[in-house]
């Protein structure tokens, strides 16, 4: 068990999501930074899809009721265990009674706490993710609150963890060749033109050339972007159709909305573009107020990035496993 000692309003249990139910109107949900969630799970020896805690309101504190492995990945929330500073992107062991504290990150927005064995909570429609809109999944369909106690699965690898921890190079560094850094604080996000792009005519070009800001009306469902409004040449609604995270819709006001992890499953606003899936985690880590610019991408580029990410994840998996086995052999 772990017990939540302090939490903000929007911290939830998430795994990699609940795909497959969009045809009955159920959002996939899942971690806003799935790459960080995967890596955290791998570090503590879990299945990649194990349920972790997504922390997006800080400070956050929990106590461990028994000895267990854990890792904090994603935004650097300066984790402390009983007051001692810890590395992020590193598997550690906590003793029963110890307290983990996460503080407001300086950049980025979401940290993930992965626990050896994963959060042991009921699977609803194939996932342990919290569906905030639907009010089910995760921690009884709601955010974590002080006093909540969550069961943690059996940890089979804790004995193999080296005492000082097991750290990896974080994706932003390891993958800097395929994820270009922000330029003058403007995050580059790659996207493909979508169905109604050409209806925006010159405003369609404005979409790509201007810098957008993530407005305060943004959450796990979608990011509202503020900037110079863009409007299609004719005022239209589409027949309702399926949508997925990354879709950039333009409501009549002209300020685009990017659908995120809790994306609606259907929509009717014209779509100017769709963020390529491998860039969604970067958007998931962008903060309210952050500036971003969209760049036209291609399926080929998206595939190349996906493959690079796949190689990195595989490398982390193999290397962490090898190190653990080697240490066990030496012990």
């Amino acid at each position, binding site marked *: 068990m772990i017990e939540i000692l302090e939490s903000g309003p929007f911290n939830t249990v998430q795994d990699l999501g609940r795909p497959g139910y969009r045809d009955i109107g159920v959002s996939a949900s899942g971690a806003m930074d799935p790459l960080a969630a995967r890596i955290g799970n791998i570090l503590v020896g879990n299945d990649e899809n194990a349920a972790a805690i997504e922390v997006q309101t800080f400070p956050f504190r929990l106590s461990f009721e028994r000895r267990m492995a854990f890792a904090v990945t994603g935004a650097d929330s300066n984790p402390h265990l009983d007051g001692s500073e810890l590395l992020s992107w590193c598997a550690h062991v906590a003793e029963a009674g110890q307290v983990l504290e996460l503080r407001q990150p300086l950049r980025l927005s979401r940290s993930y706490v992965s626990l050896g064995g994963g959060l042991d909570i009921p699977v609803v429609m194939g996932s342990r993710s919290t569906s905030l809109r639907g009010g089910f999944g995760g921690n009884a369909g709601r955010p974590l609150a002080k006093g909540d106690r969550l069961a943690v699965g059996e940890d089979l690898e804790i004995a193999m963890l080296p005492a000082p921890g097991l750290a990896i190079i974080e994706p932003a560094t390891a993958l800097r060749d395929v994820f270009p850094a922000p330029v003058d604080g403007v995050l580059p996000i790659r996207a493909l*033109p979508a169905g109604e792009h050409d209806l925006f005519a010159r405003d369609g070009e404005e979409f790509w050339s201007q810098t957008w800001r993530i407005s305060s009306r943004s959450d796990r469902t979608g990011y509202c972007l503020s900037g110079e409004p863009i409007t299609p040449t004719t005022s239209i*609604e589409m027949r309702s159709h399926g949508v997925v995270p990354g879709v950039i819709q333009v409501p009549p006001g002209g300020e685009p909305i990017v659908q995120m992890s809790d994306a609606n*499953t259907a929509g009717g606003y014209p779509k100017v573009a769709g963020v390529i899936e491998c860039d969604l985690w970067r958007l998931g880590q962008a903060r309210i107020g952050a500036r971003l610019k969209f760049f036209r991408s291609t399926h080929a580029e998206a595939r190349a990035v996906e493959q690079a990410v796949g190689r990195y994840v595989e490398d982390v998996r193999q290397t962490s496993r090898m190190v653990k086995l080697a240490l066990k052999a030496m012990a």
Partner: protein
Amino acid sequence: MIATTNRHAQREIVPATQNRARVSAIGTRSFLLEAPGDFELAAQRRIWALSRIVKGWEDLAEDIPGMTNLLVIFKETPQDPDAAVVRLLQAWENAQSIDLVGKCIEIPVHYGGEHASDLPALCDLSGLSDREVVRIHHEATYRVFALGSAPGFGYLHGLDPRIYMPRKTMPSLKMAKGCVTIGGMQTGVAMLTGPNGWNSIGFATLEMFDPISPNPAMMAPGDTVRFLPARIEL
């Protein structure tokens, strides 16, 4: 298209394409096929058939039937997106119209009252009295075309063109779960309390979604829906 009786309507709902099906990409793994022509049952029956065809594809992750359209999500980003488009169009050409045999769902509705926040505007738009709007709405028989937008929410076809009403430019911020609503040429029942761009004319208390049931959604594509006026408060 919005019928000519709705002469005040500011926005039109576009037919997907006039002559040929259209396929467009949404991000990297998803492709939307939009059926050509009018918003009608014949097109939807072919969409249902297409859904059945793509479910046999090994590289398919998910498909989401919409209103005379189908979103197809592949397991991986296709190497050749043009080939994926061609394949989808060919499947559409081969899709023989099918009818889904569904159940009949009766939904008791409290028309008017505190939740019918958009009934006066619909009367203004249509030129009809509130009594006529309600009568027209509950006398029709609807067909579930597709589910989406919220857990268990069914998009219903069969709305009388006299009471079509475009979605709002500014959504209501906190529309209640259970509101019976009209969005363009569609009608439905709100499944969640929250922002909603449709227009509310009544309220229903029937529970239509249970996340822990093996079949969480009461409605399924092809089902028939009737609204029964349990109470009319005008």
